[in-house]
């Protein structure tokens, strides 16, 4: 009888620990309506990519950097790449065409909104940056810095479809956590 009770208590304790641990490991998902921003980019994709003069170099897709990101690192990489675009890429690009400027503004402001939406995750310490995530971000920054600023900016803008697709895939509410 005593042994049964002890074993039951042990099982309960293990379950409790597991649930606490699982809560800590739970992904921080920011569900966004990506449709509009994806459409905005589709409209200017050709014009932007046509301006990219270094066709055989990539900034985001080195050895499929983004595809290798594990679920646990999604929040950190999202945070880092949003900052990459908002603080660096959009600022380094000077756009004169009003049509393209409108769409780039739409995407930049959306990224700003997404950064704000991620803040609660950071405050709850659910956006921890592990080594793999930090390495991936560093590779992207290094690729960018190897090119001349304007070329790097236009190339990064041209690769927005890669980043948007990755965001869409990893930040869906109904994807497995």
């Amino acid at each position, binding site marked *: 009888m005593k042994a049964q009770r002890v074993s039951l208590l042990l099982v309960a304790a293990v379950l409790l620990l597991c649930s606490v641990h699982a809560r800590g490991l739970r992904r921080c998902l920011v569900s966004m309506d990506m449709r*509009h921003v994806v459409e905005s980019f589709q409209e200017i994709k050709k014009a932007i990519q046509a301006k990219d003069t270094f066709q055989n170099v990539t900034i985001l897709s080195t050895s499929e950097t983004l595809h290798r990101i594990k679920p646990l690192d999604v929040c950190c990489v999202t945070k880092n790449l949003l900052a990459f675009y908002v603080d660096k890429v959009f600022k380094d690009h000077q756009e004169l065409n009003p049509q393209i*400027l*409108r769409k780039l503004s739409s995407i930049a*402001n959306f990224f*700003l909104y997404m950064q704000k939406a991620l803040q609660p995750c950071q405050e709850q310490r659910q956006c921890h940056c592990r080594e793999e995530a930090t390495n991936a971000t560093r590779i992207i920054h290094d690729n960018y810095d190897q090119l001349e600023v304007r070329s790097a900016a236009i190339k990064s803008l041209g690769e927005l479809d890669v980043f948007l697709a990755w965001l869409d895939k990893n930040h869906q509410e109904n994807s497995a956590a």
Partner: protein
Amino acid sequence: IQTPSTVLEEILASLIMWFFYTLIPCLLIDGVAILPAPQNLSVQSTNMKHLLTWSPVMVPGEIIYYFVEYQGEYESLYMSHVWIPSSWCSPTKGPECDITDDITATVPYNLRVRATQGSETSAWSTLKPPFNRNSTILTPPGMDVTKDGFHLVIKLEDLGSQFEFLVAYWRREPGAKEHVKVVRSRGIPVHLETMEPGAAYCVKVQTFVKAIRRHSPFSQAECVKVQGETLPLALALFGFVGFMLILVVVPLSIWKMGRLLRHSCCPVVVLPDTLKITNSPQKLISCRREEVEACVTAMLSSEEPFRTWI
């Protein structure tokens, strides 16, 4: 006699005079005709449709055109000199502008308007405070609840691609469970449930806008009822009685019609009573022998006018 210096002085004086003469009209124009900037900028936003309005500039003369520009929070933080011309209102005539296509992110937007008349341009008038589309007023959506036989069908108002609908429906009886269905399709009828006869079902709906993470209030509940099984029975009984009646009435009326037709085309002539010979003809002429001749004569004489009459 004029020396060179006096000549120069005169020239200088006249130049100065002309200079001032040309300045005076310019001063006058500047003082009176600066185009005023548009005032009272405000945004009315309902169901994610945003309308910027302002007081029109009333200055007589040529038509006044307005230019609207916007700046998202990104631009205001990182490149504050960048203002983007509005998609539909650069320029526009009316003192209003549909900025729905410009406000494409859920961040505060700065908006500014200025007026132009001919070559004159007013100063910029900026909206204070900046507009964020998450302050839009969401109204309960319109819905059309119908029954297609036993199927409960609902058709929803088309509010655009940013809207999702949450449809709540339940059976109107105590303790009934409320079902919720998320509808993303627009404009097409949606099947909710197959109803049981005799029961009433109620539906209410609200919208959800993912871009601003907000719900509208629920609409008023609308209820429909499906007729119970008793009615079909009553209908069957009624039908049976009607059928029996028809079985009786139709042959009767056919027979009646037949008789009527016979009468109309081939009528049976009925002798009036006065001409009816109830007894044998000999009896009518009940004359005595002596009077036979007289009777015959009388008969003959009575026949003649009859013959002449024929």
